[in-house]
């Protein structure tokens, strides 16, 4: 009889070892899949995990791209992890990401073609506010009516998607775009653009914000009273209440912060790499960030690493597609496997596996 016994503390050794184990397991399972598709499994795995970092031809370009891809994921996931630790479930980051982008881009498009130094900072504020406001809907409904925030935040994603479609077809449509849906390209509007800060590094303001978020969250959780309250609420809501934590304030703080960070991510994306509001502007960053938050074990440094790992599989997956002709579907399935293994082996860091008969309690 195999059974699991909860560890009093997550095992440090396993916390480090499990991701490596998961990647190894994925390589085996994924390799089998690639072999079944008639591709050389070793080459496929090497292309996904090795080439983006070290291939002579690509690496100088794709290494910085890791930051571009990981930036929004990390920024959103950090915000989500605060709430997740306290048992507050915002799974609507995708909607907050959209609303942040719309608010920020809306400011720029409304003031077009004004060239002023304050435009970009104004957009940043608008972006954060847009995401924050969208997250405040589930937050207020939860504190006021005890409405389940998981469901409200998820439902609001669909509403945000409809607003996005309406905006790119209507109000924000580029008047010089030949009638096609989609806004002006903010990359070509210098005062509003979020360009690469140092050429060839992939660093834009969104990536900078991501790093700042990681550091701030780390300090907050380890050194600050609020971080203590968040952790305590997650472990034992009742104990937290005795310790003087105001649960409503915590809900407003956690949802608001995650919403604002998701909104910022949207704004930096629309003003930078994506360039414009379009019907399918959102690429699922908000949902992927949830996975990133859990892969990173809700720890700021873990999230940073998990974000980079996700980015690696995206970029490596792209290389594998056009260099080896592996279908996009296989890459998607491969990513799914990686997530399954990462989530599955986590059991080892939180639980002891005991063999033998159950003792009488």
């Amino acid at each position, binding site marked *: 009889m195999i059974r699991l016994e909860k560890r009093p503390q997550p095992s440090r050794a396993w916390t480090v070892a499990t991701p490596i184990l998961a990647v190894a397991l994925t390589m085996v399972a994924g390799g089998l899949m690639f072999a079944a598709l008639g591709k050389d499994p070793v080459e496929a795995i090497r292309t996904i995990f090795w080439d983006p970092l070290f291939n002579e031809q690509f690496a100088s*370009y794709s290494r910085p791209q890791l930051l571009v891809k990981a930036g929004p994921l990390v920024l959103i996931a950090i915000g989500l992890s605060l709430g997740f630790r306290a048992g507050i479930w915002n799974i609507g980051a995708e909607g907050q990401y959209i609303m942040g982008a719309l608010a920020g881009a809306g400011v720029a498009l409304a003031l077009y073609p004004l060239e002023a130094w304050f435009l970009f900072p104004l957009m940043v504020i608008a972006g954060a506010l847009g995401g924050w406001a969208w997250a405040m809907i589930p937050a207020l409904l939860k504190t006021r009516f005890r409405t389940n925030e998981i469901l409200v935040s998820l439902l609001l994603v669909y509403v945000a998607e409809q607003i996005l479609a309406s905006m790119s077809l209507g109000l924000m449509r580029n008047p010089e775009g030949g009638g096609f849906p989609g806004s002006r390209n903010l990359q070509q509007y210098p005062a509003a653009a979020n360009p690469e800060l140092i050429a060839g590094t992939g660093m834009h303001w969104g990536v900078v914000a991501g790093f700042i978020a990681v550091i701030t969250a780390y300090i907050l959780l380890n050194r600050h009273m609020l971080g203590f309250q968040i952790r305590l609420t997650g472990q034992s809501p009742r104990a937290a209440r005795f310790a003087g934590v105001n649960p409503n304030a915590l809900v407003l703080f956690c949802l608001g912060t995650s919403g604002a960070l998701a909104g910022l991510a949207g704004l930096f994306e629309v003003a930078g790499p994506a360039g414009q509001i379009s019907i399918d502007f959102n690429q699922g960053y908000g949902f992927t960030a949830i996975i990133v938050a859990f892969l990173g074990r809700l720890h700021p440094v873990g999230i940073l690493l998990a974000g980079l790992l996700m980015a690696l599989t995206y970029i490596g997956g792209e290389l594998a*597609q*056009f260099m080896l002709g592996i279908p996009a579907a296989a890459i998607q399935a491969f990513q799914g496997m990686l997530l399954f293994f990462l989530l599955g082996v986590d059991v080892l860091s939180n639980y002891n596996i005991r063999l033998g008969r159950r003792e009488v309690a």
Partner: protein
Amino acid sequence: MNRRTLLASAALALGLAGTALAQDKTKVGFVFVGPIGDGGWTYEHNEGRLAVEEHFGDAVETVYQESVPEGADAERVLTQMALSGADLIFTTSFGYMDPTINVAAKFPDVKFEHATGYKRADNVGTYSARFYEGRAVQGHIAGKMTESNIIGYIASFPIPEVIRGINSAYIHAKKVNPDVQFKVIWAYTWFDPAKEADAATALIEQGADVILQHTDSTAPQAAAEKAGNVYTFGQASDMAEYAPKPRISSIIDNWSPYYIDRVQAVIDGTWESDDTWDGIGAGMVKIGEISDAVPADVKAEAEAMIEAIASGAYHPFTGPLNKQDGTPWLAEGEVADDGTLLGMNFYVEGLTGEIPQ
């Protein structure tokens, strides 16, 4: 020699081998917006890619990437393709316009071909197809075939490309059947089989007995088959599995001749940036076989029209034509210029309803 330099030189050797290989073979890249299994837009572009492989054999290597989101991801995919030694890259969706221009500026030696866009550079050409020529033929057949005098039209997005198609079909349906009426549904999607099925059903239930579609799936064909006595036309691909009824003809995107032509130009060193907008004449738009469900005389008329369009004797937008609000657009015998067609944002006279926004 330590481990790092060993790796570096191994990688260098690989890299050199890569370039050496690239020199004897012309490498052609394709970036697709959907999966190659969509059975429509991307499927036909991929057919073009396969035709290139077939035609050139070992002289050309093609690479492709499917389901690439428009925006930041497209830019990265394009850059990586250019870095991998591609000589020519086809970007097959309107939304790749700015990424294509951006990447092309960084790789002046790589040629780019962007479908359906309007921005060009020294190493960026554009191409598109005059699908409205095919729509004219469809409109003619539809106007003859309808008995309820109601023709349903499943439109995707209110953009010039789609509006042009509606106008062209309407003009020619009206010409042979003055009582004809168009019911247009904007599906706001290029591809959502379930929604397209619902749209077709809604149109049929409201009396339409001919359905035209500007969306890519065969769902409307199936809905028409289920309803019986409704005619449809294949879109993007032939959709011959629904022939001879309900599918009585089709518009096929046929990119193969163009792709082969452009690849040849790169091999010969004669490639130049230009703007191609070809139709039936050049073979970019193909009309799928008109099935036996269409009476012989109608079929003959349609074939005559195809002939006339192909030879340039007839232009589907020939005056006299008024805009929807009754203001004159084209005088007797006048032919629409490409600029107006490319930016078309109005209905012609007789169409009811409004273009959204």
